């Protein structure tokens, strides 16, 4: 029987994009660290947004990359992880203002970037743990 790997990996990036994603995240941190002394107070919000966007792109590349052997169980675990990430996103949205008010933080709203980054992190983490538990 010939493996039908392409059927399940359709729409996902090749597996080497995991490394590309990791490099993008590391580069994002390095560039942010190097640029920090040269940016003015007015440029800070823009620099922060760009850094977070770069990290989100890196996380997205990792999340949207297929495994070396992508089969039906990978798809199953991917859906489970997405559900967990979605659930955590909702919990994060609901509890963030409560936690912020306890910490005397004036900013009670969460940005889309924060939410997307949290969900991506949770997706990657859950998928990794689920894959590990099946070894």
């Amino acid at each position, binding site marked *: *029987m*010939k*493996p039908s*790997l392409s059927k399940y990996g359709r729409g996902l990036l090749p597996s080497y994009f995991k490394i590309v994603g990791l490099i993008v995240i590391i580069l994002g941190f390095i560039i942010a660290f190097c640029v920090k002394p040269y940016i003015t107070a007015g440029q800070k919000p823009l620099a922060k947004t760009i850094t977070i966007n770069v990290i989100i792109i890196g996380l997205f590349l990792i999340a949207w990359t297929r495994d070396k*052997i992508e*089969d039906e169980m*990978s798809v199953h675990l991917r859906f489970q992880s997405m559900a967990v990430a979605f659930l955590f996103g909702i919990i994060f949205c609901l509890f963030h203002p409560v936690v912020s008010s306890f910490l005397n933080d004036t900013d009670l709203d969460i940005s889309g970037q924060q939410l997307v980054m949290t969900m991506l992190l949770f997706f990657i983490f859950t998928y990794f743990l689920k*894959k590990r538990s099946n070894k």
Partner: protein
Amino acid sequence: MKNTVKVERAKLNITQQELADIIGVSRQTINSVETQKYIPSTVLALKIATAFNTTVNAIFELEDED
């Protein structure tokens, strides 16, 4: 759902990796099926049965809670 994949594999004296290569899935998938953590689709069940030259019913059996 119970299954006898491990027994059938032992009869043929092949490893999880070898069975995974024959079917075209990862070794983790075979392990999950054997330990009943994952219930395979009809397609995968048929592939497993074909690899053992038997029927799906001979390998997979429904339990009371199914």
